[in-house]
């Protein structure tokens, strides 16, 4: 499929169909339609909340919940294909997973990729981000069969831990470096960066007349900050 970049959605649908068949559903198309409608709905809710949910909570918080969901799904999948109860549960987790995905990382991941750069460098940054995304998707889809094919590594569900590990790294890095860009003008973001405010603390600072102002007095702030600066 051409849209290999949209892996979450694509694989979600493929494997949902597979499990629909496993639990003996005669009409996988109708169920897949229901599940894509739910995904669309979740994404729409995320869009409506884009002005209220902080970017950091949306991506880092959402990504963290997804990691837990992934581990649950991997665990449930080890029950075997003949266990109908386990397969039904698995299906329920897959559908909620894809709703959570489009409702958090799927939606706000784009916003982060688009908003974080400065105005001057934005075209190059978006371009570079997309190229990285494409190449990663290509790498994953070519390496994948090697990990899970029975005549090769045959990792099965264990490959999950590789993914959760990588995601954990990404979430940690974002926790340290992702700025809060929601409802901030680009000019304010530039001022905050220029002042050396750590990105994870952007929400505690305002910019008034080109000056950075901390929201309220906090003990230890001064010493902590002067060390950094």
């Amino acid at each position, binding site marked *: 499929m*051409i*849209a*290999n*970049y949209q*892996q979450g*959605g694509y*694989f979600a649908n*493929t*494997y949902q169909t597979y499990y629909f068949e496993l639990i003996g559903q005669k009409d996988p198309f109708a169920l897949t*339609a229901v599940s894509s409608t739910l995904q669309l709905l979740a*994404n729409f809710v*995320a869009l409506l909340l*884009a*002005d209220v949910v902080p*970017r950091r909570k949306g991506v880092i918080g959402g*990504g963290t919940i997804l990691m837990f969901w*992934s581990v649950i799904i*991997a665990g449930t999948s080890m029950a075997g294909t003949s266990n109908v109860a386990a397969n039904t549960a698995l299906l329920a987790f897959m559908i909620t997973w894809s709703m959570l*995905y*489009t409702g958090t*990382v799927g939606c*706000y*991941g784009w916003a982060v990729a*688009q908003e*974080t*750069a*400065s*105005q001057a460098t*934005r*075209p*190059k*940054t978006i*371009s*570079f981000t997309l190229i*990285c*995304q*494409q190449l*990663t998707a*290509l790498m*994953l889809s070519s390496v994948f069969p090697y990990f899970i094919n029975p005549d090769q590594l045959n990792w*099965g*569900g264990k490959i*999950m831990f590789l*993914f959760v590990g990588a*995601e954990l790294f*990404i979430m940690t890095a*974002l926790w340290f*470096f992702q*700025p809060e860009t929601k409802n901030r003008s680009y000019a304010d973001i*530039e001022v905050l960066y220029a*002042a*050396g405010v750590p*990105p994870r603390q952007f929400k505690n600072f*305002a*910019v*008034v007349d080109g*000056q950075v102002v901390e*929201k309220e*007095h906090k003990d230890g702030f001064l010493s902590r900050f002067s060390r950094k*600066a």
Partner: protein
Amino acid sequence: MDSNATKNSVEAVEMSSVDKTPIVHLETSSMDSQLKEEVRQTTDLTAKEQYRKLWTAIKADKRFVWWTLYVMLLVFSWGYDAGLSGVAIAFPEFREYYGNYFAEGKQWVIPALWQSLWNAASTIGQVFGGYAAGQFADVTGRKPLLYLAVALSLASSFALVFAPNLPVLFVSKLLLGLSVGLSTAIPPLYVTENAPAHLRSTASSLTNIIIVFGFFASSMTGFGASKIHGEWSFRLAFIMTFAMPTLFLIGMPFFPESPIWFMKKGREADARKAIIKLFGADTDVDERIEILRTELKQAEAEENGKSQTSWKAIFTKENRTRTFVSVLGLQSQNFSGVLQLRL
């Protein structure tokens, strides 16, 4: 604001480095109430206030909202086209028509080699399309690249409908890939760089839902077309891939070039015209120009003479972490994928 009152109530903290903006440290007790309110406005508004602000912004910049939806139609278009050509290839009629030279026995299959070549073609196309977007967006402006994306998309649709053989389909996939690469970069770029701060949070969250919506529409069309028997079931699905780019093309002559690109090029008069086209005649053009100038930090850039638009610029010390965060924003999607497993 009364500057004397501000001076008395806030206490500037000396920073060790001279070129850094001084951080003002506030004593809550002595904080000027007006300043306090301004701080609250940017850091913690209630949800209700936030929505009221968003609604005001939507009403004030109605014209921009429509242009946003228009330019994002190209994103919808690629989701739709890409989904549809994927759907069409799955049709038995398609496989019978194109797979017959290679098939054995009763089963009609597209040779695996061609299937992987198609996938490779579309990925290669997307990588180069994405690269071209970054390489040329600051040289030619955003509009020529939008035209190019539409042209490539139409060319690939022609090849799909009239493709006499599998290699032509390969070329078609490559062209569509290039178009997709451009279409995923330029419209989101245009929307994010021009959206006023109060609209931006919502506007930049649009990308994914529009792609998903495109795929959704394509599977609906595919389902409808699959009810037709014979060669026209997949031909019809392919023909539908003309619809969106053509629709998009109609609006293009009226679509303004990005004001921020004009400003980067130092063409302020053109930027003013574009702002009026983009936001309407009643907008405060001077204010917007001033905002663009601050955002681009033009005075500063001229002083140190460093290029802000080269590939190197995104890896400099100031921009490195921001580039890193942008990349991770999309990578978090790749690696959250538990469902990529065939368990």
